[in-house]
């Protein structure tokens, strides 16, 4: 492993452009796809170099373009990237959600078709799950897909389809048997958004950004071969994909470009002043410590779960709490940042505020979605109560 680590490091040092070893602002995150817009040319160079190694998806099989690394090797890659401050070259729902599900449930043809473009960042995917009448009660979704010979005819209305207006394809939960019980009439379908019947419309959010959309699907013909898994058995795949999604969202606090992130205690010292090396306001200092200690203990719990997994023990109940705890902590972090900044944390735009201050304010608003998207905190608590504690319905 030391040789592997040294090789990884020297490759990264040689191939990661200096501009890609800096703090990555939200608008410079690379998600790929036909509509990709690169603020700097190095973003594309870095993506292509990493994709050529398969390291955009380090643990996926090499025959589909992935890196073919073991879990331990992927961890070394991650550690070395963090240590050098390398940006994550590519992110998106293809990598974090759809890919793992296709590897598990897709046909060989579906894997061959869809996985390599995800690894290269050629195709960007979005998620067609929620509907206006199906939020936490996701299984009550009504988007209809009718099998007509070699294709499905799809009609429906999806919402919270993040970045749908920048995406090429959408993976959708659709109702294929309206007569069956609600969990048993759902299928998992891949839809090309090139079809004019698929119309995404951005929704302006409280943060001023429009990452979320609603997406209308009208009389769209989808080849029957785009069905993932058996007909009417999509709920199993849907839940599996949610596990991947929750893992991603729950890791948000850890992943936040830790090397470049401004620490909360530094912000607190800046605004409250410093006395004998301490945050001068003792109440703020106590609250910063309380938050930081909870975040620290949570990181230790993630690490414990990873050690348990490595030791080959059956997956324990710990992971059930990650989405809940990770998102609540991330929200708390932004609340603490704003609390420390006082007036300066309240700006919407303009020169009276620094770019970091404005960014924190917008991210504070964005963070409120963390405990809603991918299953609300309340839904996570229900899951723990039922699956882990065995409390009755």
């Amino acid at each position, binding site marked *: 492993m030391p040789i592997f680590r040294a090789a990884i490091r020297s490759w990264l040092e040689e191939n990661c452009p200096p501009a890609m070893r800096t703090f990555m602002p939200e608008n410079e995150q690379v998600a790929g796809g036909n509509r990709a817009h690169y603020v700097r040319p190095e973003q594309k160079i870095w993506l292509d170099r990493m994709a050529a190694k398969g390291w955009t998806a380090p643990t996926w099989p090499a025959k589909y373009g992935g890196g073919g690394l073991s879990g331990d090797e992927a961890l070394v890659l991650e550690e070395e990237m963090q240590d050098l401050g390398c940006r994550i070259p590519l992110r998106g729902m293809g990598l974090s959600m759809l890919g793992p599900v296709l590897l598990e449930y897709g046909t060989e043809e579906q894997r061959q078709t869809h996985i390599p473009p995800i690894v290269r960042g050629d195709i960007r995917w979005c998620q067609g799950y929620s509907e206006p009448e199906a939020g936490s009660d996701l299984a009550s979704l009504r988007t209809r897909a009718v099998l007509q010979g070699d294709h499905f005819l799809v009609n429906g209305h999806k919402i919270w389809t993040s970045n749908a207006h920048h995406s090429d394809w959408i993976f959708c939960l659709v109702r294929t048997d309206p007569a069956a019980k609600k969990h048993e009439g759902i299928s998992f379908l891949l839809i090309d958004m090139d079809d004019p019947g698929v119309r995404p419309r951005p929704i302006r959010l409280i943060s001023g950004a429009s990452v979320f959309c609603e997406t209308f699907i009208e009389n769209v013909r989808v080849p029957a071969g785009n069905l993932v898994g058996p007909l009417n058995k999509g709920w199993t795949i849907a839940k599996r994909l949610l596990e991947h999604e929750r893992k991603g969202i729950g890791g948000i606090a850890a992943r936040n470009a830790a090397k470049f992130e401004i620490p909360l205690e530094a912000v607190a010292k800046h605004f409250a002043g410093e006395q004998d090396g*301490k945050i001068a306001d003792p109440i703020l200092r106590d609250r910063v*410590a309380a938050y930081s200690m909870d975040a620290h203990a949570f990181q230790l719990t993630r690490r414990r779960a990873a050690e348990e997994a490595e030791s080959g023990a059956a997956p324990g109940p710990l992971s059930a709490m990650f989405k809940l705890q990770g998102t609540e902590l991330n929200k708390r972090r932004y609340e603490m940042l704003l609390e420390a900044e006082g007036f300066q944390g309240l700006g919407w735009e303009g020169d009276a505020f620094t770019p970091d201050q404005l960014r924190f304010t917008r991210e504070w608003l964005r963070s409120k979605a963390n405990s809603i998207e991918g299953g609300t905190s309340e839904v996570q608590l229900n899951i723990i109560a039922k699956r882990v504690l065995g409390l009755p319905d």
Partner: protein
Amino acid sequence: MALILNEEAQMVRDTALDFFRERSPITAMRKLRDDNDPDGFSRDLWRQMAELGWTGFLVNEDDGGSAFGMTGLTQVMEAAGRTLAATPLLSTALLGASLLSIGGTKGQKADYLPRLLAGEHITALAVDEGSRHAPDQIGTTAERDGAGYRLNGQKTFVLDGHIADTLIVAARTGDAVMLFLVPGEAASRTRLSMVDSRNAALIRFDNVLVGPDAVLGGGAIALELALDRARVGLAAEMLGSAQEAFDRTIQYLKDRKQFGVAIGSFQAMKHRAAEMFCEVEITRSAVLAAASALDQGSNDAAALVALAKAKANATLYLCGNEGVQMHGGIGMTDEHEIGFFMKRSRVAEVSFGDTRFCRDRYAGIMGY
């Protein structure tokens, strides 16, 4: 740092869980309380624990121990916490064994350790003096008197102080803090009757004369290391108590029926139960990390210790209080055992560092 137990620690854990479940259930603690037992613990049971080797986990092999470390001892203390067992684990197996091992001369070790290891000699650390844990504010003085010292001052909330054969006393000699081995009967001792039946005493030193051989080496540095161990040991005990209160409460939510259904089917209960689960597991991670860091002498050990004690404070408080509330009226009765956990949470929290102490310490170590 290891966050999962190796096979050896797992065996200690299983042995300890069985031991306390069988030989020292909560009814044993209740009987000691109701009988107004003068010792407040069972000497016979303590000798059995010594036979299992638990008194030697923090003692080197050369001195008759096993040097198994905090990772082993925290497993025993967690198991003791599950049944709220009254034992001198903290005062003697942890603090006494640590301080004698770290600072004892060859002669002192030979004199004290064999008896301590055999479960025949109880020690107690006399450190706190004010209304809360503050080891950097010691007013008890040790003045030179001939070849020896003259001790004056008052110590409060000395765990197992009422039955200690030897008191280890932190006293000030000018600017330095030194440790002294003082025979228990040389001081004036008042047993404290605590809300949770924890064994503790108020101890006065009025011109107590000790010889030069009473000086235990290591001073403030040894004290700090031993206190960090005590914080993690107590945090482990509190984790065990929290886990037990949590388990009992979950069972009650499944058994107790109102409105024709189990009360655990109500979402108002489910969500709070799930929150408790998270806190217990997060606390477990912090305790494992701190014990492992102390054994390895890691740089981040002190921060992890403060973290573990703070989390244990909050989590036992949560599980104790939610336990009583979720049990309803029966939880308010002395006959039911759930109330014992809530009482224990308050007393354990103030011992060796309440939450504000831990936060202040953590922030200081982290540079803010």
